[in-house]
């Protein structure tokens, strides 16, 4: 692309954990206000950012709150006065700030929060489980899962660009699997400041900025005569986000090279596949490896790595999955008491497939809960169950727990 030739877009490669990669992205995005409160696995992001600021690499307000509730409120209010704001948390900490999360969405404040996915206590557990980030799924947030540290870094930039777009102005949650991504060190390419400035325009809340020169109040108390209209506005913003997301990836590819074939999900070995697994986050690595090995044995299997959960890419995903005979949905969460006693993603995808005249067979796998590892063998087992469904075998139940001690 022409733009890529004008300026240098890539700076250097560094060995970074997922958390450090996000911190570097926050530096590159020239964030104005960072509010922090420690909880593992998110903590390393705030640690890294405090060092980046202390080293003089970023000029930002760094505020340590007394709790996640205050932490999120600080970032939310900073966003309202026109500061690009960042915060993050994990597990129960994320839930403790829930009120501020809900309000940030209704008030349409485009903060970017990191969710280092962590199981919800009790028992106290550090390991990854997706229920913390999924808890805000109905609240009017943009939610996506990163698979690698590189992708996480790039999606801080992409995320701010989408969230802050005048047509959207919704808060953005960037989810990362605890430990497997947050704490794993990989070589990460850092873009140059010039390239980032070209990609990410300055934050401008425009006529909605809270400022003495622009006297407004936000978040009023209202009666039943306004709430429905506010919800309807939120939905419209989420609808408009689809177009903005498409533009954001197109522009990103234009500046940084062809990095993303499609915004919402990445297909792997699906061209002639009859059976695929769908999942979010780091399960992509063992799942893709298992697919490769099964391909070597002649099985037509592939993997769909779902990146965006909100807005849910129903049309795009339906058009993709329609091509297969069987779909295995991997959930790193469990939806207690849900219609099929399966995972959250299962219900979303089954609902998404419902309008099809001929629907692929669906199987669901509950796996990797509380940080339990998901091996290549586990993924092969999931493929085998999905392939039996492809063949019309009804011996397996809709939902199988993979990796639980029996």
């Amino acid at each position, binding site marked *: 692309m022409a733009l890529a030739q004008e300026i240098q877009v890539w700076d250097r490669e560094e060995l970074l954990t997922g958390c450090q990669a996000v911190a570097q992205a926050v530096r590159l995005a020239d964030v104005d206000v960072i509010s922090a409160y420690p909880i593992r696995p998110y903590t390393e992001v705030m640690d890294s950012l405090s060092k980046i600021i202390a080293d003089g690499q970023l000029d930002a307000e760094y505020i340590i709150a007394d709790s996640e509730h205050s932490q999120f409120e600080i970032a939310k209010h900073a966003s309202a006065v026109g500061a690009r704001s960042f915060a993050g948390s994990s597990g129960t900490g994320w839930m403790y700030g829930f009120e501020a999360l809900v309000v940030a969405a209704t008030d349409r404040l485009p903060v970017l929060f990191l969710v280092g996915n962590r199981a919800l206590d009790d028992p106290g557990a550090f390991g990854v489980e997706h229920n913390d980030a999924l808890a805000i799924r109905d609240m009017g947030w943009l939610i996506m899962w990163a698979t690698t540290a590189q992708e996480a870094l790039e999606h801080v930039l992409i995320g701010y660009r989408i969230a802050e777009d005048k047509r959207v*102005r919704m808060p953005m949650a960037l989810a990362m699997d605890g430990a497997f991504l947050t704490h794993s060190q990989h070589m990460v390419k850092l873009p140059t400041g010039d390239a980032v400035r070209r990609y990410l325009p300055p934050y401008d809340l425009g*006529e909605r900025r809270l400022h003495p020169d622009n*006297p407004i109040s*936000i*978040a*009023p108390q209202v009666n039943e005569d306004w709430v*429905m209209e506010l919800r*309807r*506005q939120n939905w419209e913003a989420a609808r408009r986000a689809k177009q903005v997301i498409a533009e954001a990836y197109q522009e990103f590819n234009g500046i940084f090279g062809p990095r993303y074939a499609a915004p919402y999900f990445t297909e792997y070995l699906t061209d002639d596949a009859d059976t695929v697994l769908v999942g979010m986050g780091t399960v992509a690595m063992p799942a893709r490896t298992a697919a490769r090995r099964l391909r070597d044995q002649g099985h037509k299997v592939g993997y769909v790595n779902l990146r965006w959960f909100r807005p849910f890419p129903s049309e795009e995903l339906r058009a993709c999955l329609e091509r297969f005979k069987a779909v295995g949905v991997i959930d790193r969460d469990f939806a207690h008491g849900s219609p099929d006693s399966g995972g959250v993603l299962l219900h979303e995808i089954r609902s998404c497939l419902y309008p099809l005249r001929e629907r692929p067979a669906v199987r669901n796998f509950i796996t990797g809960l509380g940080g339990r590892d998901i091996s290549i063998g586990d993924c092969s087992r999931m493929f085998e169950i999905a392939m039996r469904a492809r063949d019309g075998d009804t011996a397996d139940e809709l939902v199988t727990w993979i990796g639980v001690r029996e």
Partner: protein
Amino acid sequence: MIKRVEINYRGIFQKTLAKRIGGDIVIIASRMGKVGFSNGRYSDSPERNGIPCKYFAFVSPDLEEEELEAECGAKLDIDEADVSVVVDDTMVKGVEPWGWHGVRPINEKVVEKGCLLVVSRKRHDELTRFTARTPYSYRLATIDGDASLAGLWVFKDDLTHERVLGAIAAVDPAIIAIDAVEAYLLAKTKQEHRARAAREAYDAVLRQTSVVTPEQGIAWPHETPELPPWHAFEEGAVVRAPARHFEMGPGGQSRNASFKRGTTKTLRPVIRFDLCISCTLCWLDCPDECFDPVEGRLYDVSYAYCVGCGKCADVCPIPECIVMVDELQFDSDASPWEHYRSDPDGYTRWAEEKKGTARYAYPHVTGTGFEIRERESVAPKDLG
């Protein structure tokens, strides 16, 4: 058949009173073999001092409870009332319970031949000069008495509650019958004077009921705001402040056009500009910023926004300079300072006439549980 009763009351001061009236209508009706239920209008904020609020009671002789609930309970406000009770007569000037609601007539819901039942010592023509004109006739009944004002968690036992029940039986026996009211009060309290208070109000209201014709009342001066569709207002729950300006004079300050709150007051401050020493205290201490600096180092007051809290009269160091006066004595919210400027002597005479010679002690005790009291009045000189 459904009978709908609404009880218009003032936030905090009359919440318990309204709730008891609504609840007792249901209990009495059920003892008469009818079905009923009662609720408060959920959109109200009855914890705000003096704000106009509503309680409802619904009664039916023939419907199943679920059907009555579906007809009445699923709605947040009612479309029509057979009886609209008003437990503070200053609400006849209109009610504005929240923003974007507008100031609505107190008789807005009263159906043809229905009844507006007001606790008031005023003559009926003193009330209908504030009510909205209707295309049909309805009845106006009054219960002799002052507004019974108490607190959110306390109830002033001054027999207003019993008297309103007796009055409802008088204006619409299809809701509750007077015999049932008396029997209920006796059974519940074993106190004959309570049943007697209900009966006396019943008899009195039968005498004090008049018909309001379409010729009576006023063309309603307030518009009802139209709520915008979802795409026609700002996103992000933003409320834009009115344009700022700080010119001297009436209306000099920026105020919220969609929620004025003036219908919250039962009394308004009458100002003797000629006595003012420009101490600024009224302007400074008014919790609702209703005072506007004007020429001559005086302070005008915006009655549309005044909630009648009395703070200005309290802090004013000059005797007789600011006095709180019954809101029903006034037809207009126009600037008193402009009146004073155009005709200083005429204004002062007018103000003194409105103030009268008696000064009332507030809060006044309207009853003891055994008798209904007149307001205690004191001569201006004794107020210190």
